[in-house]
């Protein structure tokens, strides 16, 4: 399971667009093996490299700019991570080195995938975060639910996060183990359900 997430300070890369879909985050052609590994290089491949099959960088793409070097925080617009459910998008972001994604809002499946992989999906609706400077330093305190933008003028924001996601991230918990510790409740459900819907358990 992922490292616990408590505080993080890092440089941010700003992608000032809405509806960044998971096909853009990791193009399908970059998912080459039945594996979670080796995806960092394919991150944003369609935007980051000149050609679909090549690795020559597009210099003006925010991630390739010198001020974003070593970025660990990604900032984008509305509905970030929409589209395909591929968890490879989150694995690619993590392998590249991202720990926090800040966006107006997120695709629901993508958000769930983030918290299971130790990435904090942080929504700041209505804060115009796509206007932030590429390469800006940001610090995030998950426990306190506070974000600080270390720009010419320092700004502080509060953010919301649901208690389950917070707990999972803060403690670096393993969701399967957590649920398996509740096996008794699950077994009770199934026993009762088997009486009500025997056909489901014996179908074909």
């Amino acid at each position, binding site marked *: 399971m992922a490292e616990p997430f408590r505080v993080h300070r890092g440089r941010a890369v700003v992608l000032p*667009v*809405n*509806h960044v*879909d998971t*096909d*853009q985050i990791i*193009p*399908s*052609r970059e*998912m*080459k*093996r*039945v*594996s*979670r590994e080796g995806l960092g290089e394919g991150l944003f491949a*369609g935007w980051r490299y000149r*050609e*679909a099959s090549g690795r020559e960088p597009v210099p003006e793409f925010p991630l390739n700019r010198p001020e974003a070097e070593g970025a660990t925080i990604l900032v984008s617009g*509305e*509905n970030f991570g*929409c*589209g*395909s*459910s*591929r*968890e*490879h998008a*989150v694995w690619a972001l993590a392998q590249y080195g991202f720990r926090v994604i800040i966006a107006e*809002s997120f*695709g*629901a*499946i993508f958000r*769930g*995938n983030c918290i*299971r*992989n130790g990435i904090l999906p942080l929504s700041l609706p209505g804060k115009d975060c796509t206007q932030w400077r590429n390469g800006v330093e940001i610090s995030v305190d998950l426990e306190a639910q506070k974000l600080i933008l270390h720009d010419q003028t320092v700004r502080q924001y509060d953010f919301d996060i*649901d*208690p*389950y*996601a917070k*707990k999972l991230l803060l403690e670096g918990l393993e*969701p*399967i183990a*957590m*649920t*398996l510790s*509740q*096996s008794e*409740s*699950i077994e*009770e*459900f*199934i026993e009762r*359900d088997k009486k009500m*819907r025997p*056909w*489901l*358990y014996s*179908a*074909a």
Partner: protein
Amino acid sequence: MRTLFDKLWDAHRVEGAAIGGHDLIAIDRLLLHERTGGVALKSLAEKGLRPLDPKRAFAVMDHIVSFREGRDRDEARSPGGGAFITETRAMATEAGLNLIDTDHPSQGIVHVIAPELAIAAPGLTLVCPDSHTCSLGALGALAWGIGSSEAEHALATGCVRVKKPKQMRIRIEGRLPPGVTAKDLALHIIANYGANGGNGCAIEYSGEAVADLDIEARLTLCNLAVEFAAFTAVIAPDEKTRAFLEGKPFAPPSNVLRQRLETDEQAVFDREILIEATTVSPQISWGTSPEETISLSGRVPTDGREKALRYMGLAPGMPIEGVPIGGAFIGSCTNGRLSDLVSAAKVLRGRKVAEGVRAVCVPGSQGVKREAERQGLDVIFKDAGFEWGAPGCAMCFYAGGETFAPGTRVVSSTNRNFEGRQGPGVRTHLTNPAVVAASAVAGRIASPSSLPVREEAA
């Protein structure tokens, strides 16, 4: 007073197991495909865990399989893709899952075969590591797309931990005009309320126009809910649902199918939208998000996003009809069912695809393909100059390998017009199958009614 969604949720909530506001929801049936499911099975095995009830899990081959007619058992459509097929097969077999392999008589796109086999049915919960799992809500099931780690969780525990979403009802009153399909209705809603309009909600579609839709069209409507950023969509089952499912391999018994399952009259939704069906027209996307959609008779917006315009090679204010195309694709979990092929074949009968257009039709499943061939639709497609493929996702998404050339403008019956979705630089226009067929014939974006009258009819 509860909504249909509340009832489905409550019936599957494991008592006393919520954590931090997230319920534990029992999953009746789990679907996997070779693209994202293989990695879940592998990772589960590496943790030394086994599926709780493998007989309620189904592994399907659809995403990477070759769509070449007469393909080999392990033939993929992308380089190195065969490993997804062989590894998923090996792991699914080892774990004891129901396997619907490449050469299985029911093989096809997971969201097409789940209804065909009645793996999805009213009152059931289903998950799949695939975002278009929301399609299955059309049968009155609670079905949604998850990630691979969640699929592992579902396999190991028989449950998914999830926060109950907000609820929205979209009521569609009146009747859709002739030639306007469920695809147009869905695109119309996304264009009007935005690709984020569904905002993580569980949506119930209801109203006269929805009741009018046959089951295949309802599947299309719910399929596009994820492009609306919805958690999922659901439609109350009715007599059509029962008739559609009865007698299918995994169907619940008749008495179960006859149970009423619907929203109570006084139930309250977090948000309600009312749509007048008569105002919906045939739609086509012009940009790179499904919300960038206009009426087929409309013009590219003058305030459209520049990035999308540039990618799509369009100018603001130009009429979308008449824009020359180089490709046409009919298939996918959105519009790859029999009724979709029938509507395209009606346009294609006695006509030819324009020169310079590569046109491909891939039935959504072996069942669809068999029935289409029994009705002679394959002959109509092939005579018109369409390629006729073997079931799977095919050209709905690019996975490496063969596709349209960069820059090709493609009219497509699929659900995503994202940059590069159908291939690097490929420009996708989403529309209904009849418009795809008409455009293929005209060699440019065209409505079926704009085509010259067929010779035999003249």
